[in-house]
């Protein structure tokens, strides 16, 4: 109860909420949609919806989980919106965003090690791209956002067992791709 009140009060300073959670929502959208412009639009939409619905926030989950719940729904709507399919394809070909390896920070590794890392990152990125929308969502929430299974269940509206099943399938697909980089 006390946590719920605290969370509700946190929403009073919505500017701070945006500052605190923007990156998390944006990068989830970016990894899901693979389009920077669409990810920015989705993240803005997510916070706008959260702002409008803030009075209905009961603090049953953390603000971060609540925001991810909205973002997950928006990603799902985006994937289902067939009217955008053409533009999604057109944008992917127009903007060179379909590679994750170039995002890898340079940690001073040897050229061989760096090349190997990039190859592995690209393998995971490709595998994530081949997953179903739900498997990808669960995978990204677990391995990019470090959310635990219960948080993922809350954000996706799935049961914990279903989350596990999706995650297991996603991991198998990723493992197959990563093994191919040896």
């Amino acid at each position: 109860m006390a946590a719920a009140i605290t969370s509700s009060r946190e929403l009073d300073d919505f500017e701070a909420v945006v500052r605190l959670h923007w990156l998390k929502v944006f990068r989830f959208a970016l990894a899901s949609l693979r389009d920077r412009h669409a990810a920015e639009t989705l993240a803005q939409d997510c916070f706008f919806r959260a702002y409008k619905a803030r009075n209905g926030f009961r603090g049953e989950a953390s603000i971060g989980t609540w925001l991810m719940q909205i973002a997950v729904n928006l990603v799902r709507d985006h994937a289902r919106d067939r009217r955008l399919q053409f533009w999604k394809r057109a944008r992917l070909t127009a903007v060179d965003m379909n590679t994750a390896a170039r995002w890898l920070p340079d940690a001073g590794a040897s050229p061989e090690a760096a090349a190997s890392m990039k190859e592995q990152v690209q393998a995971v990125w490709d595998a994530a791209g081949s997953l179903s929308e739900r498997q990808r969502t669960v995978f990204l929430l677990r391995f990019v956002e470090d959310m635990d299974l219960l948080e993922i269940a809350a954000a996706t509206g799935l049961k914990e067992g279903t989350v596990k099943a999706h995650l297991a399938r996603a991991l198998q697909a990723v493992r197959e791709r990563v093994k191919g980089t040896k």
Partner: protein
Amino acid sequence: MIEHLSAEQISQWMMGERTPQLEEHVAECPECRSELEQLETALVQFRSAVRAAGHSASPPVWRATASHGPWFSWPRLVLAAAALLILVALPLTWRARVQERAAEAALADSQLLERVDSAVSQAVPEPMEPLVNLVTWNASPAEKNQKVQRQ
């Protein structure tokens, strides 16, 4: 021959569900350990890459000026009252104007009817009235002769 971890067991391990049996096998099997390490490293690098990509975007400035405070505010109330007043006054003014026009039309109609009535009620049309003075309709032929002689 050592039986290696199944795909399900590897997923279980990666999800953090590490039973003593799994840990024992990983400790004893270099192949499985190597595969798990490779997968873990790939996932960690992937997370770093996506997070790095996200960091290149800065959060937008949140401008919700109209709603930083509560929904109730005096300027907003005055505006709402003015809008309400206009909404109420406009139909009333319009209705009064319509009634006024209807009254004017009714008056004009009644005046026209009066004029028509008076015109219709005349026995002889106005242009023929001088002739009426020459004729007495109810007089006998003798009286008519006297009247003509007097004239």
